[in-house]
């Protein structure tokens, strides 16, 4: 009971900033009312390519809005049967009355003409019949399934931006992760919804903890491909490794500052794993820590780049710490258990991390994902009793987390809203781990 009271208090604490910051209200879904939106299937023209592309488009758009975390998407079974292809087909009273009971309506048409895919989309505030149009967009790309998917993501992001407090949606973001499905741990990428999974590296070695640069041009990761683990830098533009200095020892977990100028990482080049920073090309090395024992997994406060959170075993089991990015003002955030893998929220307010709170012989501890308010050290548990959960990474809108979990029996990549709801498995083949959400 006491535990429940604590949790309720913390949830309340999380709701408070919602008054000032729209994203946390919508992100946690606690206390705030989600916008009820209806998304009837777009109407397709007679071109034989149009029907299959429209099927992709409708499924992706519906999923994007459902996953956004700010909508209560009306089930399609509640929709009127008459198709909608344009504003003239909208009957406001049908949509505002039960059962749809919608506040917003996203609709439009899709056509294929001479190999080009053309989509017209509208967003209507159906409760404002006098002046309903919130958004009208038109898209044109070559007629491929990928482009139907892309246009759906773009339209979804427009809607989310308009209705989600001016925060850009994540429908066009990517996830980078480690997959062993080729037989080696390689860096892979996929769309945020699990589509288009593909290998980035083919190093036939062990590659770990990829992190994409803020401009989406490079992926930094740790790899054994030259012997001991060292930082490898992959150019997504060139499709090959870039030169990057070898720091020696066990060097791993590179993390970008949000301006892309510097990297923080762990290296045992001195004989003991310590936290360092360097610039994006590996120059201007600075050592930040000096305690004996493991120091790993640094991440920058993306809002200021003035603080670094990391994991230290200086007192025994690993705990989450925070320091200034010059190494001063070290603070310990977690008070017990086994706490690793911090990820700093885009607004700088929260750390997500993996925690076995009650670690010890016989203790029924599981590794779960938690988020902690950095200022108050208050925390909330997001996953419960479902395998080993680790490596959370925030989405750029701060509403989602991607993480790895063994709850399905093998290590796989999952996403959820930042309040722990809508947990969704994205990978199913081989072992997939250490996901990282792109910055945009």
């Amino acid at each position: 009971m006491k535990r429940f009271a604590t949790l309720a208090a913390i949830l309340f604490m999380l709701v408070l900033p919602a008054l000032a910051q729209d994203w946390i209200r919508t992100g946690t879904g606690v206390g705030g009312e989600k916008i009820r939106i209806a998304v009837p299937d777009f109407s397709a023209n007679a071109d034989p390519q149009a029907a299959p592309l429209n099927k992709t488009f409708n499924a992706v758009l519906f999923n994007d809005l459902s996953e956004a975390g700010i909508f209560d998407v009306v089930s399609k079974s509640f929709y009127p049967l008459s198709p909608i292809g344009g504003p003239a087909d909208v009957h406001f009273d049908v949509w505002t009355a039960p059962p749809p009971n919608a506040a917003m309506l996203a609709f439009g048409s899709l056509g294929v003409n001479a190999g080009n895919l053309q989509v017209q989309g509208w967003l209507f505030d159906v409760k404002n019949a006098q002046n309903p149009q919130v958004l009208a967009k038109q898209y044109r790309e070559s007629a491929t399934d990928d482009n139907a998917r892309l246009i759906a993501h773009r339209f979804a992001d427009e809607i989310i931006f308009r209705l989600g407090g001016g925060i850009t949606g994540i429908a066009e973001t990517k996830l980078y992760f480690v997959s062993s499905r080729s037989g080696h741990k390689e860096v892979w990428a996929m769309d945020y919804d699990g589509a288009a999974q593909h290998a980035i590296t083919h190093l036939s070695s062990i590659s770990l903890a990829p992190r994409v640069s803020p401009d989406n041009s490079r992926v930094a990761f740790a790899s054994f491909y030259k012997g001991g683990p060292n930082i490898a830098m992959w150019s997504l533009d060139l499709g090959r490794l870039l030169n990057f200095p070898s720091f020696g020892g066990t060097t791993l977990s590179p993390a970008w500052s949000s301006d892309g100028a510097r990297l923080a990482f762990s290296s045992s080049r001195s004989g003991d794993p310590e936290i360092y920073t360097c610039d994006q090309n590996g120059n201007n090395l600075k050592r930040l820590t000096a305690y004996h024992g493991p120091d790993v997994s640094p991440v920058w406060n993306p809002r200021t780049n003035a603080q670094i959170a990391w994991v230290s075993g200086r007192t025994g089991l690993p705990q989450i710490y925070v320091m200034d990015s010059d190494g001063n003002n070290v603070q310990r955030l977690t008070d017990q258990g086994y706490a690793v893998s911090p990820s700093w929220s885009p607004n700088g307010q929260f750390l997500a991390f993996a925690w076995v709170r009650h670690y010890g012989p016989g203790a029924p501890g599981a590794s779960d994902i938690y988020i902690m308010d950095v200022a108050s050290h208050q925390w909330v548990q997001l996953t419960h009793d479902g395998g080993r959960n680790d490596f959370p990474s925030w989405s750029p809108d701060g509403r989602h987390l991607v993480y790895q979990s063994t709850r399905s029996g093998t290590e796989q990549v999952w996403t959820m809203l930042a309040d722990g709801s809508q947990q969704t498995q994205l990978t199913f083949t081989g072992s997939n781990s250490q996901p990282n959400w792109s910055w945009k």
Partner: protein
Amino acid sequence: MEDQLNRSKLKWTLMVLAFAAIVVVGGCKKKEVPPAPPAAPPPPQPKATLSVSPESIDRGGAATLTWSTQDATTVSIEGIGTVQPGGSQSVSPTTSTTYRLTAQGPGGNADATARLTVVQPPPPPPPAKAPEVTDEQLFSQNVKDIYFDYDRYDLRADDQAVVDADAAFLKAHTAIKFTIEGHCDERGSTDYNLALGDNRANAARAALLKAGVSADQIKVISFGKEKPFCSESTEACWQQNRRDHFVFGQK
């Protein structure tokens, strides 16, 4: 008077001899056509047989060559030489051999062959040489891995004796270069375990250096939980994986 008589006898003798010489010498110069020989029957073609018994022997064994010829004046066997027109001989070749007998006679030649197959026995075991122990074998026999408690990288008391024994061997074999691999069990996080494995490998390195082993001999690498020795989720298995593994050589 008698002297004159003797002289006349000599004169007559010389004359006779001279005449005779003229007759003989002149007769020699003259081409004398011999009379055609009588049409004799042609000499018969020689015949030859050659056999070997047995036809197959093990290497080192012997076989008997037996031959006979007819109407031959010269008989030879390749590899043996000239032999009697008929006979037998023991042979002991080391590889399969085809014997060829050639019989030459007034009526021509005759050949006969016989093949003796020599079965190669399996090669005898190589002579037992003195066992040669490589540095790598010595290393694996003498240098033992050390094990750690959960989430710890300090050496346990029971590991100190192992490290001392490892150090004694390594100090006596300064040419040996080796790698200390730090390993962790599957629990805990990937990155943290790589750092922990690094601390474990460096803990062994520090202990070996303290015991007098040269730093030139040692390389360290951490594999974290990436290369487990044992893949079950049991404490026995986890203990196997929480170790410093000593590997001969440096990659």
